[in-house]
């Protein structure tokens, strides 16, 4: 809702539209509007303007229904048709499905059955999780393609709506200086970190069955990796971009057991406060073997990246919230300086901050002013907030707008999802054979010691924070 409000503030919504809230909970239009108003007042990035809200709210309706009931979907259809007629909306519809996986097939089927009888377009936004493994993802895709064309399905991964993620494409393909060195000849390795300092925030039911690998790795992390490693697309259309991402996902080979580390947090400190262990969280089994951390070394078997490791890590209750992509370049082959003069010097790193502090930093060596030749690392920072004096759109604003416009570039295609699950399934299969001693890292630390070993074995280390 805050995203829709932001679009309304910027006059980016169509002149004629309606928003229909659907849930099983009894309620009416007024109660729905009041709930949404509260949400907007609390979470919107823009100042709350009563007139703008009123304009938005008068287009909002609510219907309480359960698709499992006989004729449940008819209640929704009747309301939508009525609103459609009243406002002359041309029978165009976007369905945003934020529903539990168990009811997903039923709803998709019901919407799909009815769409053929209308003249307008239908688009379906599907929230994660998209399946639990390859088999279930294929089932969902089959279900969707039975009723919908791929161009009508918008599998949302909100990371792709972030400006910085899109900026990765701009950075790579709009600047002549980076692409020539964006390969195994010049890049030593890549590190992708998706760190959260929060725990599971009361979502034990979901997290116990998902774990870090399904919650983050399967979707956000592999998408970041694909954008980092993909070849230049011939144009910026949805198909071209997604074709290139799929090629990267297909080129990733399954990491062996020694190249994957999983962890689960124990008690520790976050922001100076003691926090409970994962197994002490409400709703989590006392002997849970769910992983809250995954670290892995991945390789893309192609000409650009052969033998260049992509070290990835993601987890909960890590010391800070941070999503970054770090491209670490090879060291200068022969620095002609005395050893001591470059003690503070680190390799060049191009760091893409996805969140927070969206921007790009380049770490370079520079001479310390004064006598002698002392060299140290300095940062050249480009921060979105500083360079463009305009607020950053929230990811959902962009993605909802793209759906309205029918642009699927920043959404995940069926074959992408299946490639992601294929990799995840093969990693998880290896886990059935061992039982790590959980918990194996304290909350507020950077994961289990074996994660450090994973990179130290190659003579490298995780980027410092």
């Amino acid at each position, binding site marked *: 809702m805050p995203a829709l409000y932001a679009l309304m503030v910027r006059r980016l919504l169509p002149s004629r539209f309606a928003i229909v809230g659907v849930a099983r909970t009894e309620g009416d239009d007024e109660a729905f509007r009041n709930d949404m108003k509260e949400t907007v007042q609390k979470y919107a990035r823009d100042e709350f303007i009563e007139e703008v809200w009123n304009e938005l709210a008068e287009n909002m309706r609510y219907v309480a229904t359960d698709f499992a009931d006989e004729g449940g979907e008819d209640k929704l259809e009747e309301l939508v048709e009525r609103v459609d007629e009243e406002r002359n909306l041309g029978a165009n519809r976007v369905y945003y499905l934020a529903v539990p996986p168990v009811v997903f097939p039923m709803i998709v089927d019901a919407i799909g059955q009815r769409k053929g009888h209308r003249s307008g377009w239908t688009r379906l936004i599907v929230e994660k999780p998209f399946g639990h493994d390859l088999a279930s993802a294929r089932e969902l895709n089959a279900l969707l393609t039975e009723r919908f064309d791929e161009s009508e399905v918008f599998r949302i991964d909100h990371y792709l709506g972030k400006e910085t993620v899109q900026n990765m494409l701009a950075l790579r393909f709009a600047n002549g200086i980076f692409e020539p060195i964006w390969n195994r000849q010049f890049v030593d390795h890549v590190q992708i970190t998706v760190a959260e*300092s929060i725990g599971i925030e009361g979502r034990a039911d979901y997290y116990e069955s998902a774990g870090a690998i399904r919650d983050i790795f399967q979707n956000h992390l592999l998408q970041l990796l694909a954008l980092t490693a993909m070849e230049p697309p011939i144009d910026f259309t949805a198909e071209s971009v997604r074709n290139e991402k799929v090629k990267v996902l297909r080129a990733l080979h399954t990491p062996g057991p020694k190249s994957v580390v999983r962890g689960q947090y124990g008690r*520790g*400190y*976050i*922001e*100076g*406060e*003691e926090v409970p262990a994962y197994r002490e969280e409400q709703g989590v089994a006392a002997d849970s073997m769910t992983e809250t951390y995954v670290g892995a070394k991945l390789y893309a078997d192609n000409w650009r990246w052969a033998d260049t490791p992509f070290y990835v890590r993601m987890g909960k209750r890590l*010391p*800070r*919230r*941070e999503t*970054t992509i770090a491209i670490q370049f090879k060291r200068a082959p022969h620095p002609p300086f005395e050893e*001591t003069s470059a*003690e*503070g010097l*680190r390799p060049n*790193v191009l*760091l893409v901050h996805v969140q*927070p*502090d969206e921007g790009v*930093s380049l*770490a370079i060596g520079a001479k*310390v002013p004064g006598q002698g030749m*002392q060299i*140290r*690392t*300095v*940062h050249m*920072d480009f*921060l979105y*907030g*500083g*360079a463009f*004096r305009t607020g950053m759109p929230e990811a959902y604003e962009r993605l909802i707008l793209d759906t309205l416009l029918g642009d699927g570039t920043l959404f995940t295609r069926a074959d992408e999802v299946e490639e992601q699950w294929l990799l995840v399934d093969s990693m998880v299969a290896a886990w059935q054979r061992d039982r790590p001693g959980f918990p194996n890292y304290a909350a*507020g630390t950077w994961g289990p010691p074996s994660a450090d070993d994973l990179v130290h074995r190659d003579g490298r280390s995780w*980027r*410092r*924070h």
Partner: protein
Amino acid sequence: MSALTVDWDGTDVRLSDVNNALAKLRAESAAEGAPPNLRTSVMTHLAWIPEAWADQARAALAGMAERHPSRSILLFPEPDAGKNRIDAMVSLECYSIAEVNRLVCSEVIELELLGTRAKAPASIVEPLLISDLPVFLRWRGEPAWGAQELEQLVEIVDRLIVDSTEWDDVPYPYRRLAALFEQTAVSDIAWARNSRWRHLLASLWPDIADVATIRVTGTATQAWLLCGWLRSRLDRDDIALEHVPAERLVGIELDGKPAPFPPGDPPLPSDVLSEELDRFSRDRVYEDAVRAVA
């Protein structure tokens, strides 16, 4: 010269509030229509400042941002405050660069760690560190040897900076300090302050090789560090120390003969700290001197 300072403060804050405040201050510091100011950082500078040292710590910071553009995080622990929370004050200090119409900004974050929030400072500092840049920790007063606060912070820093002049009962704490040498590089401002005397004594080579007694009129710290340096450099642990207490180093005698007074004035505290912030590697000579008297 400071051109602009903008501030924000908050009570019972989350660290995301601090990060948001910094971003907002950076945006506000630029003039309307002008390009944004540069956030320039060469390090994160941490300081652990028990209440008694607050004024001195702030005074030492004066002018440092200009010489070492950095993010400074000042931690004021108050474990007995009776409430558990973090209060914060954030400021952005911007300086003009000669001949360039731009400002360079440094960030200063002051955090009061009240009650139990003073127990795990590393977990508070980590979300605020600037990625990939070295982290220096200035510990005011004598470190709390063996305490988890010290252990945690030492884990995340590249260099610990102390001033052993601020300690009681030297040389006994040097043994505890020496135990940290394998964990992190250590600088001692007291050692840096002695440097002109060490240069002078070194110039007395080779006559100094057989010295039996060094008599130092100054602080106990100065006396022990100079004695330790001589012992370790000459590889002789039989050199005796005679210490005549004084508030500052006013004279050295070697076997009863006064050493000449070194030329120049003693360096200012901010100069000494500034110099230590330019060092990255371990100071083996200092470590040997400390071990020689520990």
